[in-house]
């Protein structure tokens, strides 16, 4: 878990105009045009992209509803979607043909989110477990979306986690891997460390609001970053290929921070100052708090992309909210499922993951925007690391798509049976739905250039 001090920045300083702020008051109606359909500067309202991830999959075979199309039934493992059913499409029969040469949880997570096979660090020599040495071969789908969507929004993407990730950092001895712990990767061996405390996310997004002009303190900090860029440009000429890409990645972070320090934020009609939610003990309430803050970040156009890791690949945690804890049940959901298979407790957990995904969808659906809701301008992709955790099955992968992506996706949501075709078609479809200028997704045996046409209007 990362723990960092609250930045003393002033992200919303441009948002307020003159005057004071009271919690819960609408901020920025004046900044929308008179129809509420565009930002005040005439720019169209943005689209948003999200990944919502949980570990250890579902029960293959029991995932698919009976009925295809809009009449799919929210029962069984999908019962938790009933409140948001009209906004969600369920995809069954999608297969992820991983190579089965590495840890399956890492292979699956990398396969579905980055569309490729894990890279194995060259230092791996068999003396450790391979999962500590695996990373993505290329950027994960949320970061591909951010390349297209982020624009000048202050946060290129929000990266969040709810239950403890597998490691506090990836740097155990000889262990440069990232894939078993983290799901948002701009590049190989680079991960976006998740914020795990809703209160910390609140502080980062809404922490210090200074009305009026851009503060000199922020300008001063931005000016310092110019020098960092100069140093990096000098250094770059001396580097080999590998270090050049590492340094370029670092510089992207410098650019993003400089943008944030100097940006004038353009909020939307529902942009209000939320209340600090604290850090609830319940994992489901933490996930809800994160969902609501994400929705407000979208509404205020602080960010347009989110990656939320409800649990890491392999689900090596407990879920006390539903009574799945160490008490008599082994030592984690992961181990418990390996021991017991699809018993009642495991099935309760698998349904619960989908239900908490539904909470996230509902949070976006609760915020009005341009005559609809945020959900109408989003594509949220829900998935996991394996189809079945018990035996590491990769067929009938859990795949969910929520939102209308500005009218690109069908409404109401449908059930589509892929009939054994590649699961990577779904993240590709979500990228296309939000207008990302990509012609394919992934590589090697997982590559696809085929959308799931039934999901698109």
């Amino acid at each position: 878990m990362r723990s960092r001090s609250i930045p003393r920045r002033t992200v919303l300083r441009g948002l307020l105009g003159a005057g004071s702020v009271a919690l819960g008051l609408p901020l920025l109606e004046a900044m929308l045009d008179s129809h509420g359909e565009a930002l005040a500067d005439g720019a169209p309202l943005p689209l948003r992209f999200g990944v919502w991830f949980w570990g250890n999959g579902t029960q293959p075979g029991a995932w698919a509803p009976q009925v295809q199309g809009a009449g799919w039934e929210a029962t069984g493992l999908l019962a938790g979607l009933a409140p948001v059913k009209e906004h969600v499409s369920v995809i069954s029969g999608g297969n992820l043909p991983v190579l089965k040469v590495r840890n399956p949880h890492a292979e699956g997570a990398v396969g579905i989110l980055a569309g490729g096979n894990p890279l194995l660090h060259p230092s791996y020599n068999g003396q450790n477990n391979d999962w500590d040495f695996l990373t993505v071969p290329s950027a994960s789908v949320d970061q591909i979306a951010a390349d297209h969507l982020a624009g000048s929004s202050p946060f290129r993407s929000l990266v969040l986690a709810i239950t403890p990730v597998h490691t506090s950092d990836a740097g155990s001895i000889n262990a440069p891997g990232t894939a078993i712990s983290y799901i948002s990767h701009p590049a190989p061996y680079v991960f976006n460390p998740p914020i795990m405390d809703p209160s910390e996310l609140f502080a980062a997004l809404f922490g210090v609001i200074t009305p009026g002009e851009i503060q000199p303190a922020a300008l001063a900090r931005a000016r310092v970053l110019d020098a960092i860029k100069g140093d990096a440009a000098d250094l770059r000429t001396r580097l080999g290929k590998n270090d050049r890409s590492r340094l370029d990645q670092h510089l992207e972070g410098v650019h993003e921070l400089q943008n944030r320090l100097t940006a004038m934020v353009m909020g939307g009609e529902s942009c209000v100052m939320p209340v600090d939610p604290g850090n609830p003990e319940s994992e489901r309430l933490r996930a809800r708090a994160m969902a609501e803050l994400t929705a407000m970040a979208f509404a205020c156009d602080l960010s347009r992309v989110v990656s939320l890791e409800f649990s890491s690949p392999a689900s090596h945690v407990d879920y006390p909210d539903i009574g799945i804890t160490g008490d008599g049940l082994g030592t984690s959901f992961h181990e418990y499922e390996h021991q017991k298979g699809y018993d009642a407790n495991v099935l309760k957990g698998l349904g619960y993951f989908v239900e908490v995904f539904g909470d996230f969808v509902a949070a976006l659906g609760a915020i009005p925007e341009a005559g609809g809701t945020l959900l109408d301008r989003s594509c949220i992709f829900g998935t996991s690391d394996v189809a079945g955790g018990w035996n590491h099955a990769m067929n009938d992968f859990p795949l969910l798509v929520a939102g209308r992506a500005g009218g690109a996706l069908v409404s109401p949501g449908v059930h589509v049976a892929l009939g054994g075709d590649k699961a990577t078609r779904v993240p590709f479809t979500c990228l296309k739905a939000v207008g990302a200028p990509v012609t394919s997704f992934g590589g090697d045996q997982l590559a696809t250039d085929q959308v799931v046409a039934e999901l698109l209007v």
Partner: protein
Amino acid sequence: MDSPCAAAQPPPTPGPAAGRRRRRRGASARRSIALAGLALALVPSLACYQGIELGGDDSSSTSSASAASTASGGSGDETSGGEPAEAPLAGPTGLRLLTPTQYRNSLIDVLGEVAAPAVGQWRSSIAAAQGGVASAGVEDYEDAAITVTAALFADPDARLALTGCTPALLPGDPCVAQVITEVGRRAWRRPLSAGEVERYVDVAADVSEILGGDPWGGLQHAVAGLLQSPNFLYRVELGTPTDPDDPLHLRFDGHELASRLSYLLWNTTPDDALLQAAERGDLDDPEGLSAEVDRLLASPRARDGVVQLFVDMFDLDALLSLQKDPMLLPAFSPTIGPAMREELVRVIESTVLVEGDYRRLFDTQEGFVDAELAALYGLEGPFDDAFAPVMLPETRGGLLTLAGFLAINSGEASTSPTHRGLTVRRVLMCQTVPPPPPDVVPKLPEPGEGGAMTKRELLEQHVSDPSCAACHAFTDPIGLALENFDALGGFRATDQGLPIDPSGDFDGQAFADAVALGELFAAEPAVGDCLVRNLYRYATGHIEQPVEQPVISELRDALVESDHDLKAAVDALVRSEGFRFATVSPEDLP
């Protein structure tokens, strides 16, 4: 696909308090996933241990190989200036991010006593040589640099102690350039170019203006910039071609060697004396490097610096977040893991650094305890929060029997002999045990109908399957010798009410118990081989490649000839081509 082959897993355990896992973070979670995947399965005809498959040499392909065998040499052809006549025996180099500890130490050594946070995402030497920084990391570095310098510059005495002058930012004012030159040299581990100084003088001037005419504020931001620069956050040890026409073979200059040396032995940025030695050219030949090794090792700062090698190697920071089941292991407390770490650090210091013999780490009778650890060990006497040296109980002796080592290589509730044996084979002996095939699902052994069974009985029943036997025969005897110690490292005579038999066979040598195993371990050549391998990896930030094997052999010989004094191996290391030179892969040329 299921498999009958499984590791010795703790059976389901009743009764921990609900919600305790909520507190579990980081390394303790890593422990659990490590335990979960320890099923070992091999085809029956295959022996388990295959030797080091990548980057290995013959020195440890059998654990009883003679460590004193003659090295194959490799640097005997040097010219008097330290240049190898042939292509150097050296591996790759590149940018190495500071680890969080290095970041904190360096910040303090650049600025003076400040409340410096430990920022960074990559803890180990090898991970930091490859890992990258995402935007949240950039933010953390920026926030730390601004926060720390703001606090420092808010204190008129502290800022004057750093700068030695008062900035005016008027034309011809020498103060700002002077501060940037001096702070920059410490932070970047080399002199700044005129252009670089000017870049930061401009920052100071512009920021002063932005802040409404605040020369101190301008200078503070310039210093904060020096500390966010890639020249500070990364160790820029890139080397220079030995021959202008050959970009593939590099040597490190004096400043780069000062950086390598300082982080190796003090885990921080070079001090002024080391930078001066670099500027005089003293580090350009092995004798000069060796003299600095003596100086650095003689300093009290070498203690934490050198111990960091073992923190990396044994993953000792896992003890900082140790989590055990308090219902089954009532001696557990949130403070006992850090106490165990402190004991291990002191034992390492006492054996490896003070006594100067790595072998003693495995058979020493000395321990260090505070009141909590004393209670765990069953030691009587007045103990308090301070750590005191003690004679260990006769059931213990050496690293394998110390609580910290036992605790981090166990589950939260129960021991795993297979896991402990694997750690010994992999981490302490650098031996290769194949990971389980990807399809294997680890399954807990269920005690038979007859009732309780010890781990030994469970495992014996289990490894009667020949597909499992090869690897378990390699790992389990070591772990079963440690069964007298529970998952927290407390002594126990029985398991499930049944007596524990700690005797066994270690690579053909019979032993009676864990203490006797430690004595065999102290005499085991592969243990010293593995130490110098880890030293080399730690110093260079990469796993040795075949071309570097002769260097590893030199280090091993130096260790053996000095009666296993790590300092002798360090001296051989800094003199070696692997430390002073680098080789570029043609594919990495820009």
